[in-house]
């Protein structure tokens, strides 16, 4: 549905986006992930035809956006990050204006506007001027304006930035609902959002594509050593040495506290040691309270990927990686 091929952009010789290629299939939500300044917005602007690319092509439903911009943009709904709407217009008027702008036939305009306004839960403010609305409402008004012409592809640039937690939940729910009718490309730097909303993820850093796949896939690929946490009742001092003997275990560490012994195990890839741990516990007559596989979160993956890239060319620029966990934490709090 959306096909991005070898997209590059440089500003005055500085490369902002470097040969980015990906596809978004019909009915899919693709998360477009990257730290601040990674080139997300620039890429999205090139996809929407707002910026001409230095190289590469973008096909929206098979139409090249830079060759036939008008035809291609008919399939496109775009919610820019800046979210500048016309403050003097009423919500209804704005959505109607967008419908006219996007060539919706006059007969259908009232119905379409109604539909878009309802879909985005802004019917209660439909008669208010946009300038008087809170940011969460404005975000949804922008979205209503972007999808009033029923575009096949929706491009959302950080749709939840600056919203309060309740609004974030509402907007995410809205995006998930939109999946039925639209193919969605969603940019964000909030990681939990990706896991909650997206079917597939593309990670970009310094303008380069560093990974793509489903969130689970990425996690599995990137988790270096899968881990396991076992909790045994009572103080079992020999637990770590015993479990270290199980084939496939790389490391074992023991933490004893509050009448429990917690053993953290790192194992080799591809070894499932859960059964072995259980049998060991039975033969030693331990009471096994808990056995949890420890998976790398997408956050780990992201930080690792971004740090790797940064390590490769650290001499060139300041490390951005430190910035990333901070943001991720912020997202978790909210």
């Amino acid at each position, binding site marked *: 549905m959306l096909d991005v091929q070898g997209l590059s952009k440089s500003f005055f010789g500085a490369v902002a986006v470097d040969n980015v290629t990906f596809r978004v299939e019909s009915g899919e939500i693709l998360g477009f992930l990257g730290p601040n300044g990674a080139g997300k917005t620039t890429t999205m*602007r090139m996809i929407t*035809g707002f910026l001409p690319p230095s190289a590469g092509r973008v096909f929206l439903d098979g139409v090249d956006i830079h060759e036939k911009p*008008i035809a291609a*943009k008919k399939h*496109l709904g775009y919610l820019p990050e800046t979210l500048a709407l016309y403050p003097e217009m009423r919500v209804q008027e704005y959505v109607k204006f967008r419908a*006219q*702008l*996007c060539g919706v036939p006059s007969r259908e305009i009232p119905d379409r506007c109604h539909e878009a306004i309802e879909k985005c839960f802004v019917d209660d403010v439909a008669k208010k001027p946009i300038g008087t609305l809170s940011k969460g409402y404005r975000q949804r008004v922008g979205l209503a304006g972007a999808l009033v012409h029923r575009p096949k592809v929706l491009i959302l640039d950080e749709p939840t930035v600056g919203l309060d937690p309740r609004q974030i939940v509402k907007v995410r729910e809205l995006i998930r609902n939109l999946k039925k009718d639209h193919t969605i490309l969603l940019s964000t730097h909030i990681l939990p959002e990706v896991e909650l909303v997206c079917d597939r993820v593309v990670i970009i850093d310094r303008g380069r594509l560093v990974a793509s796949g489903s969130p689970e896939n990425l996690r599995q690929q990137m988790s270096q050593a899968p881990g396991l946490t076992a909790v045994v009742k009572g103080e079992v001092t020999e637990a770590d040495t015993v479990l270290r003997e199980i084939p496939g275990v790389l490391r074992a560490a023991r933490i004893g506290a509050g009448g429990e012994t917690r053993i953290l195990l790192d194992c080799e890839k591809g070894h499932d040691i859960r059964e072995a741990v259980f049998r060991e516990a039975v033969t030693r007559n331990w009471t096994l309270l808990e056995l949890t596989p420890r998976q790398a979160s997408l956050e780990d993956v992201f930080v690792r990927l971004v740090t790797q890239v940064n390590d490769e060319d650290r001499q060139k620029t300041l490390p951005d990686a430190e910035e990333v966990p901070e943001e991720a934490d912020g997202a978790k709090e909210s």
Partner: protein
Amino acid sequence: MKPFFAIVRREFLSYFFSPLAYVVLTASLVMNGILFSGLLQALNSPETPRSMFWSLYFTNVFFWIFIMAQSMIIAMRLLAEERKSGSIEALLTAPVSEAVVVAGKFTGGWFFLLFLWLPTILYPVLLSRFGAVDVGPVASGYLGMALVGALFVSAGTFASAITKNQIVAAIVGFVFIICTFFVGVFQSFVNDPEMRDRLSYLNLLEHMDDFSRGIVDTRRLVYTLSMVVFFLFLSTRALEANKGK
């Protein structure tokens, strides 16, 4: 065509939400009123031919100052405002070309200029109660004013397309407007008769002089309209080049 009209409508209506528009509207009415009554008093003698009033109304120096200032203020926000706020991004990612956006915005601004002059229609109506008014020169005078206004607003639109700052757009726009005005006025400083003749085509003073006397010369129409298209073309190119910056 529908996107074009949608943009024209939005642009025209948006003026009524800005305080600046009301200031301009009020100032224009006050100044036009003073001008009207001043002219009436000056020409209030039986010997003055009636047609004299309208030719003076559309060619006096205040007329030029008004229309230049109005055009400058109307045009300065057309593109600069949207580029500054970023709403141009949503506008240009809709299925419309830059040319339609520029043309729509220009037309919206131009309609507002015409709206500013609309109350002055009252003057000929008022005068007609005290004697016959020759409709021809009045109509062609307004036509000339509309054309000159279009030219000035298009020059201002171009200025608005090359900067994000409305104040800069106003100043640069005013320079463009002055240039389009003075390029013809140079006629008076040239000795070469052939050159003088050519420059007269560009002379807006002569242009308004013709119109205010009821002469609708197609050469004048062609000149103004082609200048408008030229400035709108430049604006489109400037917008294409600058939109993402």
